[in-house]
C-alpha cells in the first residue's frame, strides 16, 4: 500500500523534503512504523504532532492505502 507523507516547518527542514510517497508491504501499518522507515530509525522529536487525513492522531494510529500522513512541530498561528 502507498501512503503520502507530508512534513511542515522545522520538520520539513529536518527531513529535507515537503512530501514523499511511501510504499509499504501488506494492508496496514502504524504511524510509528512509517516514521521508522522515513527517518531511518531516528527517534521522533519530542512534541511532534501527527495528522492522518487532516485529523490529529497519535503514533499508534493504523494507516490504510491512500492515507495522507503529516508530521509537524507544535503550531504557532494566531
Amino acid at each position, binding site marked *: 500500500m502507498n501512503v503520502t507523507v*507530508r512534513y*511542515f*516547518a*522545522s520538520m520539513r527542514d529536518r527531513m529535507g523534503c515537503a512530501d514523499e510517497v511511501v510504499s509499504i508491504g501488506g494492508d496496514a501499518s502504524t504511524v510509528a512504523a512509517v516514521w521508522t522507515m522515513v527517518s531511518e530509525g531516528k*527517534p*521522533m*522529536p*519530542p*512534541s*511532534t*504532532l*501527527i*495528522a492522518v487525513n*487532516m485529523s*490529529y*492522531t*497519535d*503514533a499508534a494510529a493504523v494507516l490504510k492505502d491512500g492515507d495522507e500522513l*503529516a508530521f*509537524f*512541530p*507544535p*503550531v*504557532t*498561528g*494566531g
Partner: protein
Amino acid sequence: MKVVVQESPFEPGQMVADYQNSLPRGKHGGVVTFVGTMRDFNDGQDVAAMRLDYYPGMTEKHIEQVCEEAAQRWDIVDSLVVHRHGDIYPNDAIVLVAVWSAHRANAFDACRFIINYLKERAPFWKCETTPAGDKRWVEHNSRDPKAEVAAGSAPAKTAE
C-alpha cells in the same frame, strides 16, 4: 460563519463591516473582535519580517471546527475568522476573530475561545527573520492563562 486563510494583507475593520452588512440587520446587539498584530520583537529579539506556513485544507478545517464548537457552546449570531499566511511585516494584522451575539457576554466568551483554540489547534508555523537576516522557527505560542484545557480536544502530543 466564514473562515478565510489568505496571503494578502487585510484591513480588519473593513472585513468586519463588510461581513456585518451581510447579516440580518438590527438583530445582534454587539460584536467582539480580536485582532492579532505582528510585533517587531519576540523572546527579547528584534524581528524584521516573518513567514507564516500552513497546511492547506487541514488549517481551514480546524478553524471551522473551533467556530462550530463555539456556536454550540454559546448563543451567538455568527462568527468570522480571517488569517494570513505567507510573508508578514511588523504592524500587519495576522488574525481577526469576530463574533456577533445578542448578549455581549456570549460574544466575549466565544471570541476568546476561538482565538485560544485556533492558536492551539490550527496548523500554522511562524518563521521569523531578524534584522541581520537570520531565520528561526518560533517554537511555541504563549497561552491565555484562562484557556480551558479540554481533554481530548487539544492536539495529541506524541510523547516519545
